[in-house]
């Protein structure tokens, strides 16, 4: 029935891939990339110095262990950074801030994982769901490790300022820089999966950034104090930041009076 079509199926010329033919070296061509990653310390070292080794290992059987290790490191580093963030207010925030930062990061990643997989598939990437999940775990790990690097700076500032708006901005800038490096890792990972286009991936990046930023409002207060662990009022981040800046402005005005 379907064979009634007058045009016989022919093999058309293939669409050129977005990546140049001379583009990224195939993963695993360097023997050092094929060495297994046995523990979390090696995983941290690899994601910083030999990201291709991580990318290669994520394609091998048993990648689940590596992904678990990377997620574990991400949670631990997020908790440590959270403690530093919590020192701004002290008290209950010393445990509330780390819990919120770690949980918020994991939920953001979980919410965005399905769309990441669909967008990468649409871009022609051959990456399986587990590999996409692994690359996302790598992003989280790299991001949180870098946040640990920023922690001493953040701590010094949190001890010398009372401005909530200032500290919030500082943490957001650190988070943004760390995320940029994480996204670079993710993009490099996808460039090795025969992706024809990165447009979908870039759209996803915008969604991921917005979700993560909104998470800071959904789980507020992370830096300041409150009577309840979670907010009783729902707000979008623009409205929340606007309120914070207004409160800060009013506080500085009354101080100058």
């Amino acid at each position, binding site marked *: 029935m379907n064979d009634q079509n007058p045009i016989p199926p022919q093999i058309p010329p293939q669409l050129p891939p977005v990546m140049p033919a001379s583009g990224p070296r195939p993963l695993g061509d360097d023997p050092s990339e094929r060495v297994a990653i046995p523990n979390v310390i090696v995983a941290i070292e690899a994601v910083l110095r030999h990201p291709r080794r991580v990318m290669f290992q994520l394609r091998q059987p048993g990648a689940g262990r590596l992904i678990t290790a990377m997620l574990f490191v991400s949670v631990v580093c997020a908790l440590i950074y959270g403690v530093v963030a919590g020192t701004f207010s002290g008290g209950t925030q010393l445990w509330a801030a780390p819990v919120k930062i770690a949980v918020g990061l994991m939920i953001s990643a979980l919410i965005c994982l399905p769309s990441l997989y669909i967008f990468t598939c649409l871009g022609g990437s051959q990456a399986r769901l587990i590999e996409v999940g692994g690359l996302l775990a790598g992003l989280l790990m790299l991001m949180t*490790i*870098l946040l640990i*690097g920023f922690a*001493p*700076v953040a701590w*010094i500032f949190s*001890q010398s*300022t009372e401005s909530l708006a*200032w500290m919030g901005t500082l943490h957001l800038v650190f988070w943004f820089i760390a995320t940029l490096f994480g996204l670079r890792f993710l993009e490099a990972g996808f460039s090795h999966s025969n992706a024809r286009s990165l447009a979908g991936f870039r759209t996803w990046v915008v969604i991921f950034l917005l979700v993560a930023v909104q998470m800071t409002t959904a789980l507020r207060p992370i830096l300041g104090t409150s009577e309840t662990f979670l907010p009783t009022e729902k707000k979008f981040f623009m409205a929340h930041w606007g309120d914070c800046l207004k409160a800060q402005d009013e506080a500085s005005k009354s101080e100058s009076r």
Partner: protein
Amino acid sequence: MYALDELNPREISVLLCGEPERIAAWAGQWSARRLALHVVVIIVGAGLYGAAMGWWRDPQQALFTAVKFPLIILFTTGGNALLNAMLAPLLGLNIPFRQSFSAILMSFVIAAAILGAFSPLLAFMVWNAPSMSPEAVSGSTYSFIKLTHVAVIAFAGITGNVRLFQLLAQLGGSRTVARRVLFAWLAVNLFLGSQLSWTLRPFIGSPLLPVEFFRAAALHGNFYENIFHSLLQIFQQFD
């Protein structure tokens, strides 16, 4: 432990001359002796310069600034050590932690050595200046001393960073990568260093305020907030 008499101060001249091969070899191996030498040079060089800086206000201010100046350098190097070590491989320069730490420390050693060398000149200038009083601070003397400090510190900082750039280019084999890493390190060191200097103020001192190690409001507000408020005040004047 190495005794202090085993330190070889001639190594400092190698650093100042900027012999990338030798410096790169030093950065590659961890030596407690060399680390101690570098810390001593920073303490002595920056300390002497700090003393000359604070002397105009009071000998006690000279002592305080002599302690605080090296502290800023050491805290900045230590506080950013982890971050700098992560930034280097992420920006294409695959060096281990100890190498990035040594490289930055050596650039500060060069700056401190230059500052130390200029400290007698600064001391001479301060000695010739009229003693610190409200009139002197509002006149051209204060401006001249301040600008001289800015010029000497800028010269020492630039020289240290030029040497650091040469070392990074030697280690990474690429000037582009070296430039990228140097700018990233400079940015984070400036960011933290400015705040530490703000917290540890005063350095020159003020004739109207008492001599003290920290200001009472040392931990209130931060450097960047202060700049922001100053800018706000300037713009409000135009309203």
